């Protein structure tokens, strides 16, 4: 497949995530839209990791070019898992204090 198709697919997923963050007020949905954006980027990184493979394998058979991109994706997943655990703990705490997960109530975080 041409790399263009993957770029536009990841772009569509990313922009749906951005629109979701801007249009929803539920904190959990906003969090899920951020996960969606992270996954769009992951998909694009994996597609890019396979982009130069054909040229590289013609020069040196058995090449491992593109390994770095896949490891970046792995580390993005690691950081996302840590982020989700802390973020959901914050949302639960906020719900316990305000009995709502509307982000407009976040301006009373002080009390």
């Amino acid at each position: 497949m041409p790399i263009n198709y993957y770029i536009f697919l990841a772009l569509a997923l990313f922009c749906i995530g951005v629109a979701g963050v801007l249009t929803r007020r539920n904190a959990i949905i906003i969090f899920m839209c951020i996960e969606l954006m992270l996954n769009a980027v992951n998909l694009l990184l994996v597609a890019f990791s396979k982009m130069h493979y054909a040229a590289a394998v013609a020069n040196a058979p058995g090449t491992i070019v593109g390994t770095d991109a896949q490891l970046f994706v792995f580390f993005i997943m690691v950081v996302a898992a840590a982020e989700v655990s802390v973020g959901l703990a914050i949302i639960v705490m906020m719900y316990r204090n305000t009995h709502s997960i509307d982000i407009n109530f976040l301006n009373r975080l002080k009390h």
Partner: protein
Amino acid sequence: MNVTEILFWILSALAIASALMVVLSKNPVHSVLWLIMVFFAISGHYILLNAQFLFIVNLIVYAGAIMVLFLFVIMLMNLNTDTEPQKNKWLKVAGVVAGGCLMLVFVAALKSSGTQQVQMGEGNIGLIENLGKALFNEYVLPFEISSVLFLSAMVGAVVIGKKGD
């Protein structure tokens, strides 16, 4: 059109439709279930690209662990469609327009990007043998640091989630 292309289009349509349903559905539980569909479609893309390690990690970590965490939190809060906070209509329209403008700018900037071919279904860089060697040679320090990150995230989640003060 060969089988790979047909699978690519089916998975892309599934991913985009499910992503739209994540944003559009009123019930948060339905949003989580649609997001799991998106993750399955993206995992299918990883299989098409022969990134087998990332396929299985994506399924276990994202669809398995993170989404179950989201579901548990939603069930803990007893949310449903009636308690769902709604933005006013014009703010929603403005949000969609802003997202659409971002997409327009990106498409205009990237539409002339190269038509290089992506290698589908072959190559061994996505296999666990190669990734494991690279992870424990060049990337061993970031790998160990990520364990510290997890420890701090765990401590942070427990401290934040603790009842009382």
